Structure formats: structure tokens, C-alpha cells
């Protein structure tokens, strides 16, 4: 289970996002879904025509999230790929993800272009059985 909300007034020029999930893997998926939802209105209509694999390493979960989300932005800019289905496996300091989606095109309603995930107030926390992430994107 995972859910996300866009925080109203934290980042005046940009957008802050809060994500909650019941596992770390789900949390990363929720963050990726929020990122896509910010850019594309009808993410539920993104078809599974392309698949990419992402592997990253980092000393902390927040850096792993920073790298993962910035990789998704890279694929959007360099290859015009957007995604709607993700599987993520975090094993210690390593992340392995499979992302399925399609090329940007007129059938996908663009909202705003995210250019980077920032380190500003970026965190991952665990409270009991729930995981929380917070990040701000540059648009």
C-alpha cells in the first residue's frame, strides 16, 4: 500500500511531495508514481511498451532515492520515456528497479516538466510499520 500528496506551500517556485507506504520497496514505487503523476495527468493510460532497468548504489536510503528519481528524469529527457509500472527491490545499499512505460506523445496529457529532484528537505523515515519519504523537485 502506498499513497502520495503534493505539499502546498513548502516550495514556492517548485513542488514538494510526501509519500507514505508499508514497505521500503513500496515507498520508492510511490515516489516514482508521484513523480510521473506530477508530469502527466493521465498516468493510468501510460502503456507498457518499453522497459528499462535501473541499478544504483548509495550509502543512505535518501541518496538512493535521489539517484533513482533523477534516473527517471534522465530517461524522460534523454529518451522521452515515461513510466507507470515499477518494481523495486532494495537490498542493503543497492537498488534494482524495473520500469515499464511508453514514449511521450500527444496521448499523454503533459502538466509540468520536472528537471531535477533536489536534496532540499529530502528524507526517508520509518515510524512503526510505515515508511515516509519527502522530496522537492525542481520544475
Amino acid at each position, binding site marked *: 500500500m502506498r499513497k502520495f500528496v503534493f505539499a502546498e506551500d513548502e516550495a514556492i517556485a517548485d*513542488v514538494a511531495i510526501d509519500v507514505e507506504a508499508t514497505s521500503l520497496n513500496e515507498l520508492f514505487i510511490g515516489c516514482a508514481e508521484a513523480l510521473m503523476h506530477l508530469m502527466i495527468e493521465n498516468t493510468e493510460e501510460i502503456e507498457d511498451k518499453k522497459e528499462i532497468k535501473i541499478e544504483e548504489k548509495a550509502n543512505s536510503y535518501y541518496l538512493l532515492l535521489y539517484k533513482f528519481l533523477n534516473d527517471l528524469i*534522465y530517461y524522460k*529527457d*534523454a529518451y*522521452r520515456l515515461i513510466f507507470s509500472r515499477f518494481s523495486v527491490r532494495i537490498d542493503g545499499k543497492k537498488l534494482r528497479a524495473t520500469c515499464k512505460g511508453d514514449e*511521450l506523445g500527444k496521448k499523454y496529457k*503533459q502538466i509540468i*516538466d520536472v528537471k*531535477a529532484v533536489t*536534496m532540499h528537505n529530502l528524507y526517508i523515515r520509518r515510524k512503526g510499520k510505515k515508511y515516509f519519504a519527502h522530496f522537492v523537485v525542481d520544475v
Partner: protein
Amino acid sequence: MELKKISNVVWEIEKGYKEGMLVPARIIGTEEIINNLDKEVFEQITNVATLPGILEYAIALPDAHSGYGFPIGGVAAMDLERGVISPGGIGFDINCSVRLIRTNLRVDEVKPRIKELVDTLFEEIPVGVGAKSDVKISKAEFLEMLKYGGKWAVEKGFGTEKDLDNTELKGTFEDADPRFVSQKAIDRGIAELGTIGSGNHYLEIQYIPEGGIKDEEVAKKLGFEEGQVFVMFHTGSRGFGHQVASDYIEKILSASKKYRIKLYDRELAAVPFNSKEGEEYYKAMGSAVNYSFANHQIVMHKTRKVFEKIFKSEWEKLGMEQVFAIAHNRATIEEIELNGKKMKVLVHRKGATAAYPKDHPRNPKITKNIGIGSLALIGGSMETGSYVLYTLDSSSTFFSTVHGSGRTMSRAKAKSQINGKDLFESMLKRGIYVKSASWSGLAEEAGFAYKNIDMIAEAIEKAGISKRLIKLLPLGNIKG
């Protein structure tokens, strides 16, 4: 927190306010601006004051609003020998710039064709999410472009030498070295060269309204008249600059531990300018500066071609010369005088532009020739207009001035208050035709989400830093 009034437009937070502050913070603005300032700016500018090697003051200009690490509208000068460089003090969109092109067209000639003109510009210049470049470039050429920037673009036929004369640094950041940029940055850069992007990036057709000339004598010398049409656009180094920033923020965050730099915010990650990491970032940043210069030349070239098509005349005959191009996200080495001694410093400007007095060696031809300080292009919201200023005495801000109007409201809040289509209709009734990649993106940029640009221009003039030259109002706009 006590805000000490230094003058009617200069306010100071003393260095005892926060542990680690090495210098005071100074905020420039009228009482009204200060009272309405986003409070996070005070925290962010005092965090900047903790960075090693910072000189005199950490400065927030009248258009300041909170950013990440540095506030937008923030300026910090670092001692070159013992000071740091911080990617957060430069921003993600490295060398994000505003460019102004004049025309000899009159508002009455353009108004009847504004829809056709804006629609064609929208078709020819890629904007929006995943805007795709139509510039064919090999990797080898791309690396050349990263070394030479605007000069490369002019050699490839995108503009003229005269454009470079009126571009900061003549369109080339000489310390650029593409060996220090990642393959990811190169991939993103190739895909987006010659595009505008989205967010607050735009291309706007503007004119000088009645009463829009604020300094008759200087306007006359520059050939500016009421009713004259201009093109202003705002874009930068696109995903390339963002990738350079993302790559180096991560590297420098890790390296700052090695140099024992205490950080009050991860986005203030910094390393000594005189270090391997500092040098590599500076050279990579320079490559992004050059990308931005080239990107601007290409967008300007496309704009000129659209005008040729619509008005069936060569762009030269339409008088489409570049007035000036100026960036607001860059670190630049400047020579300053401090306590009677000349010294070189690294000036971080994030959401702030360079502003050189009339006798400064970096004052470009267009203003040097008529005996005034360099121009600053202050982009306002798409509803309220923009200003062109010229520099008076900018020594107190390390040769820096304002860059725009600055947001007062989040994008989400703006969208909750107006629908993009309603905004479009309302602007159309007021004679402004906008073409946007999305209604949602349009709503986010509504005029009420920005500070009053007249107040910003008035404040910087009261501070004696820049003087209002002309005001420009929008006729048409393309947005991502």
C-alpha cells in the same frame, strides 16, 4: 530575529543571529517588500552567511524568495583563496537567462497578427515536457559546443558576431571543460538543444506602452520608442545544466565532509574553490553556461525565422537585433575593491544578475558606447510585464541586481485559485494571446502568483543599484 534598518531599503541580520555565521546578512527591499517576504528567506540567507570564505555580507535582493539552500535572489562573494564554491548557490538551471530582441515593428502592425505569430512560434520552437530538439548534432560537435557556447552557435549559422558583443562574457565561458560532465548530461543535452522548456520559461512578444519609457534620454540613445515591439525569452541550460547540478551536488555533498565544512542545509554542499572537486565543478558549470549561450542563440535564430515568415521580410530589415542577454544562475570570478585593496572573488548569483557600472571592463558595447552601466532584463509574470534597467552603482552587491519578480505563492496554490482556460480567456480579453503546452502549466504562472514587479524595480532603484529604463507589456506568449 532582529532586522536592523541600515537605510530605507537596506536591512541587516547581525552575524550573532545564528551559530556559524561568518558575516551578517543584508536584505534589500522597501518596508513593504520586507514585511511580505517569505520568512524562509531569512533562514536561508543566514545559512549562506556560514559558508567558508564568504566576504562582507550574504545578500538577498528585493525579488528574493525561498529556494533550496540559497534563496532565489541571493548573492554571495567568496574569497578565491580560502572560499568555497557551492552548486546550490548557482542553481539547477545553470546560466538560466533572459534575452531581449528589438524589432522596428509597431504594436499596431503586430497586434492583428499576434495569433498567427504566437501559433507559429509555438510550432517552431519546442516547449513543454520532453520538448524534443530538432538540431542535428554529433557528440563531437556537442563537445565543441560545450567549449565555445555562443561562439560555436554563431559559427554554425545561429546568429551573428554582433549578438555576441551584446551577450555577457561574449557568449563563451572560457574556463569550461566538457571532460568534467557526465554521459547522462550529454545525453540530456543533445536531446534538448534549441528548446525552451516549461515552468517559468517562456518566449514573449512585448511592446513599450504609453508611459513605458522611464528614462527619455537613455531610451533615445538606444533607439527605444513607445509602441515599439520586442521579443523577450527566458530559458537556460535545460536538462544538461540540471544533470550537471544533480551530479555535482551529490559529489560535493560527499566531499564537503572531507574538507570538514559544516552544512546547515544539504543543498549548501560546498568545497573549497581551490580543490580538485571545486575545480571540476567550476569547469562542468562552465560547460553548462556555454550550453545555455548556444541554446539561446538557436532559439533566437528560430524566432527571427518565424518573424521572417510571418512578416515576409528578412530579420535584418525587421530590425531584429539582440539588445542584451543576461543570466541569473551562475558563479563568476569578479575583481572587487575591498578595504581599498583590489581582489578577485567568486560571486555566486542565484536568481540574481550581473550588473556592471559604466566604467567596468565587463560593461558591454551597447551600454559602454553611450556612457551608462550594463542593462538588466527583469522578466515579470506573463500578465504584468517586464522591465529593462541599467546599472548605477552596484559595488555594494558585488556587481549584482534583481532578475525578476519572484513568486509569492506555490504552483499548487495558484492552480487552486484559477483554471488555466479561464486565465487564457481573461488574458485574451486584455489583449494578451498565450499558447501553452498545458492549461495546468498556464494556471501556475498566473500574475497573482508573483510579486509586483513595479515594487521590485522601484526598490532596486531606491537602493541606487539600477535605474528603470523601459517597461514592456505582453502582447503574446508561448509557454511550456
